[in-house]
């Protein structure tokens, strides 16, 4: 069980900095949808443990339900006036629960899938190129040097909502004359869900394997359409030896559009809004690139949601929640979709396959497929290239 001595000086010190202002609580999507998690109380309970000399563990005061409710959206960190890293503490608590084997069943299945098959949905690697269908995509051969690698990711490879994102990317890159290769069947999960769910050993093993694979191919630059893969490869892989550049597809496409290599000609006239993914926005400060791509489409009138950019509410898919089914309170994805519908835009644009999966299934569940369509920024651009 996690002891205070397992927490770093930083994790303890910043708990002490808490002013109990409650801003974190006000923006937490879990708290606002009836889940037991309250970020202010997490910090408070760590403090309580610190004040108790009898060797109490934070997990004596914090329940597993609170710990597993977090989507790691970082809204709490963003609002905190004294910059307490609350998500960091929650992940630390998850690590302790994982070491004790106390993981929700569905999360355990996803972790097992990553450990054994390299995919949280348990698909075998041999299926990783089926998304391409009739498209011609160059696969890196063993030992081949690949300067520019397009990372498809698990959602892109295996989820029906994400296949069109990958296919759109191929069409866009081909149209813009960009040469690239994919890893194909030797690709495996970036490991991001493993780290967020608390199996740090699994994350590091997968990350090291991926870094070694990139090194063997002498990869210089990696392009990804997934905000989670982007964040983890850009910010977390260097610690494990990565020496390559990482670019998010919204950034790359914005560049291609600015360079005139992609010229959308078909108008988009029925309104559009953009959902900022947590892992692109708050985690990496990228809010403009996807908007620049949308802005280049003729007729696209961007209607911002009430809570947008750094105040964007999570789609509910982060922190391993795509694989967990926590039936407490309201669905976070439903709350976000309602906000999108309120803008009256017909198209909700996202820049992360998980956001698309969550909002798309939310629209289907609410029977709103006629009122709103959820599309990735790459899909929207590809759909509006030709007149």
């Amino acid at each position, binding site marked *: 069980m996690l002891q205070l001595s397992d927490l770093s000086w930083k994790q303890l010190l910043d708990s002490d900095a808490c002013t109990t202002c409650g801003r974190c609580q006000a923006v937490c999507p879990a708290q606002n949808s009836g889940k037991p998690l309250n970020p202010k109380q997490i910090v408070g309970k760590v403090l309580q443990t610190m004040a108790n000399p009898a060797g109490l563990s934070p997990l004596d005061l914090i329940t597993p339900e609170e710990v597993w409710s977090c989507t790691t959206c970082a809204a709490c960190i963003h609002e905190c006036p004294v910059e307490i890293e609350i998500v960091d503490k929650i992940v630390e608590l998850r690590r302790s629960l994982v*070491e004790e*084997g106390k993981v929700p069943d569905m999360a355990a299945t996803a972790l097992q899938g990553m450990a054994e098959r390299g995919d949280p949905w348990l698909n075998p690697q041999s299926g990783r190129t089926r998304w391409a269908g009739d498209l011609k995509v160059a696969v890196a051969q063993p030992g081949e040097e690949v300067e520019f690698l397009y990372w498809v990711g698990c959602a892109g490879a295996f989820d029906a909502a994400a296949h069109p994102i990958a296919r759109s990317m191929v069409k866009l890159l081909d149209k813009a004359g960009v040469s690239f290769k994919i890893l194909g069947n030797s690709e495996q999960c970036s490991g991001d869900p493993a780290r967020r769910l608390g199996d740090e050993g699994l994350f590091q093993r997968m990350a090291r394997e991926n870094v070694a694979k990139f090194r063997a191919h002498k990869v210089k630059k990696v392009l990804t359409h997934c905000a989670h893969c982007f964040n983890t490869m850009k910010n977390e892989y260097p610690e494990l030896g990565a020496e390559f550049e990482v670019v998010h597809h919204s950034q790359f496409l914005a560049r291609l559009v600015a360079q005139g290599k992609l010229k959308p000609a078909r108008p988009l006239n029925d309104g559009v809004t953009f959902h900022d993914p947590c892992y692109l926005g708050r985690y990496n400060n990228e809010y403009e690139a996807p908007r620049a791509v949308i802005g280049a489409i003729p007729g696209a009138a961007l209607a911002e949601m009430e809570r947008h950019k750094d105040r964007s509410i999570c789609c509910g898919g982060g922190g391993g929640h795509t694989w967990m089914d926590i039936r407490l309170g309201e669905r976070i994805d439903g709350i976000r979709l309602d906000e999108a519908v309120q803008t009256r835009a017909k198209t909700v644009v996202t820049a992360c396959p998980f956001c698309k999966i969550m909002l798309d299934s939310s629209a289907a569940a609410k029977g709103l497929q006629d009122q709103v369509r959820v599309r990735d920024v790459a899909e929207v651009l590809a759909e509006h290239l030709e007149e």
Partner: protein
Amino acid sequence: MQLVVCLARVMDPAVALEVQAEPGRVTQKEPRPVHVVNPADRVALELAMQLRQRRPGSHLTVVTCGPSSQEAALHYGLARGADAAVRIWDPGLAGADALTVAEMLARCLRRLVPDLVLCGNRTLDYGTGLVGPAIAGYLDLPQMTGVERIELEPDGRLRAWRRLDRGAREVLLSPLPAVLVVEPGAVTPHYVSVLSQLRARKQPVRVLGGAELGGLPAAAARTVQVTPPKPRTKRVILADSKASATDRMKALMGGGKKPTGPAGPATADGNSSAAGSGKGPLELPPEQAADQILQFLKARGLALGGPKS
């Protein structure tokens, strides 16, 4: 209480297999071989851990038969909470059949003097299902197979729930020592983190060779030939999407033949085996249809208010 669990590291069947006719071997294809701890064995281990927790002072040993690559299964067991690990191996055991493996395990178990031996029902890859029952045979111990739940009685006997067909259960009571053959899905095993398995590598594993176990037995079975399976032809029946619901159903149930004869309400035709009442498929307004369906189910005791309820 002395507990022993037999673990095996097996090929993940999701990875495509390649059959090499010479020398008669099955290996995994690209992109890389994947091995997992046999799922049924993980469940056996979980049941053993539950017992170990309920009986303080119990001792749990995990055993495997195989080369050093098999130790990963033992590390998993140790990480889960086993107290000791034993690996049986002799170069002469390469390619050994299930009964030979069972005999070697039995010889090792004789030395461990267990109160209870737990095995998974079958392995994911070879799946003979022989090892558990054969161990019981070699050790001349009672065996309970298809086990999904166990409870220790106050008098020291073990009560086990066996899974039978169609949801039936059989409850057995056995004195100890005994061998349990466990169904996968009986319980959900605790998650075992990668870190804990890495740490478990530092724990010692006792290796027993053929010499320590009384030599190697003569092979009970010899592999004569290994061939790939014949590809199964897949027949996909697609009913004409423009046809009415009745016609589509008739087509699907008639093996894909286009239905002849009039479609529509209350048709009595040859395709009535499913309805069973001599009437063919009916097309009715929803309320009437629901009523008819309910009568149909009630008549067969499949709905509340029917003859059998």
